[in-house]
């Protein structure tokens, strides 16, 4: 075993990939491998988090991430509680704090938070005793998505360092992109990003990322192609002429996939918009690992929950 390997996470929360060292990322991925085996058993449940309560607090719609966290929590025998709050009923600021304080009063061990505002998890982590796990905050980070992407890449390619990873799509509104770029550069991959000029945030080049508006250049010789969804719900105004034109210019088609390495894998964090950012036959193609990503999400989230659950609850509420 590597002498420099991490044996624990140094923080109580998982707010973003930015806070993790490369060794900690590898620890999460290694732990997730053990967790994946639990999902292959006849009885897919271990008693590890018995007596712990995890609250899934989702201020934004989500199917995949919330389901995935809930299955992960249940497989570890935690008691889970889902609080789904429609975006319309929530105003930023005090309301979030008040909601959190009310939930905190019921002494959960962990809160899994998704919120429309960047930084919501940081805010909660300062006022809550419970460990906060970021399940996506605004346009900031989505750390468990990046971790499950990395897990899927490592599972397929045996490594992450040195791989050319092309990320194509709506770069401006993507928290998945931010978390992935941080993770990929920490583990020594060679990330390329590609999208319409209007959807390229300033400063990307400073992160050591190759930026292009030509999809063929991004995909050329890539080991991994990661597609991002057009986040129309976050767009006010015209960032590009039409979805049809977007597909013609940036959509992942079989012809474009052919420019990548023969053993390329195609990834997508979901939800997929067939015929917008990715052709239907690519989604269902042999190189697509999109459903592996979903399956791996459970194992990775089990690993995060386990690693953050260390130690006894220091306080019980009457």
């Amino acid at each position, binding site marked *: 075993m590597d002498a420099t390997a991490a044996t624990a996470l140094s923080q109580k929360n998982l707010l973003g990939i930015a806070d993790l060292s490369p060794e900690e990322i590898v620890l999460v991925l290694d732990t997730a491998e053990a967790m994946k085996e*639990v999902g292959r058993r006849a009885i897919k449940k271990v008693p*590890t988090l018995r*007596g712990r309560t995890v609250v899934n607090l989702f201020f934004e719609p989500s199917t995949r991430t919330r389901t995935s966290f809930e299955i992960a929590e249940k497989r570890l025998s935690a008691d889970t509680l889902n609080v789904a709050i429609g975006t319309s009923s929530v105003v930023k600021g005090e309301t979030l704090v008040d909601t959190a304080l009310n939930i905190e009063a019921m002494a959960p061990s962990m809160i899994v938070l998704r919120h429309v505002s960047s930084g919501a998890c940081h805010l909660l982590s300062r006022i809550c005793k419970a460990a906060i796990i970021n399940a996506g905050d605004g346009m900031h980070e989505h750390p468990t998505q990046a971790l499950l992407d990395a897990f899927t890449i490592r599972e397929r390619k045996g490594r992450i360092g040195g791989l050319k990873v092309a990320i194509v799509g709506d770069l401006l509104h993507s928290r998945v992109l931010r978390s992935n770029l941080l993770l990929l550069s920490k583990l020594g991959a060679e990330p390329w990003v590609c999208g319409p000029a209007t959807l390229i945030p300033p400063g990307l080049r400073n992160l050591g990322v190759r930026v292009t508006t030509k999809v063929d250049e991004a995909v050329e010789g890539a080991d991994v192609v990661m597609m991002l969804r057009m986040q129309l719900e976050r767009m006010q105004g015209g960032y590009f002429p039409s979805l049809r034109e977007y597909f013609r210019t940036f959509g992942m088609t079989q012809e474009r996939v052919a420019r990548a390495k023969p053993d390329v894998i195609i990834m997508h964090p979901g939800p997929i918009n067939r015929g917008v950012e990715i052709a239907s036959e690519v989604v269902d193609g042999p190189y697509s690992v999109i459903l592996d990503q979903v399956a791996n999400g459970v194992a990775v989230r089990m*690993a995060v929950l386990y690693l953050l659950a*260390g130690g006894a609850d220091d306080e019980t509420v009457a």
Partner: protein
Amino acid sequence: MPVVMDADRISRAITRITHEIIERNHGVAGLGLVGVRSRGVPLARRIASLLAGVAGEEVPTGALDITLYRDDLMRAAVGPQPLVRKTEIPFSIDDRTIVLVDDVLYTGRTTRAALDALIDFGRPKAIQLVVLVDRGHRELPIKADYVGKNVPTARRESVQVRLQELDGVDEVVVEVGE
């Protein structure tokens, strides 16, 4: 630092246990070996290769990590979580006699966790326990079926089993704790 077993004694103990397993089970048909991580795994593999030599039949062998079943996980003050490693049992344990292999039997809590973990994999016909060293001080009603050596110890002492596969040397050492 008294060495209570050297390479020779370890090897003879494992050979004897192998023969005891065959005698007690009237052969090796329907047996499966499961080593408890870390040092139970190389011990189980050694027994497997001896069984294959003596009985001329391969006995399926697996590795069990009991971390997720520990009873002290969430009780300690905030500290690092123990590393979880992979459990690999590449055969069905249903209706097999499972020979569970560990290096040291002490409080019995690891064995309790291993039994709980095994039951989640299926319903074995029976479970038997092999340990290289039984050092006493049981806290649970658990007893080994095959013992390499009984080593009377004090609680403040610790028993270190070192194996070629993981530590580069075969020996069992009793060390005095703090």
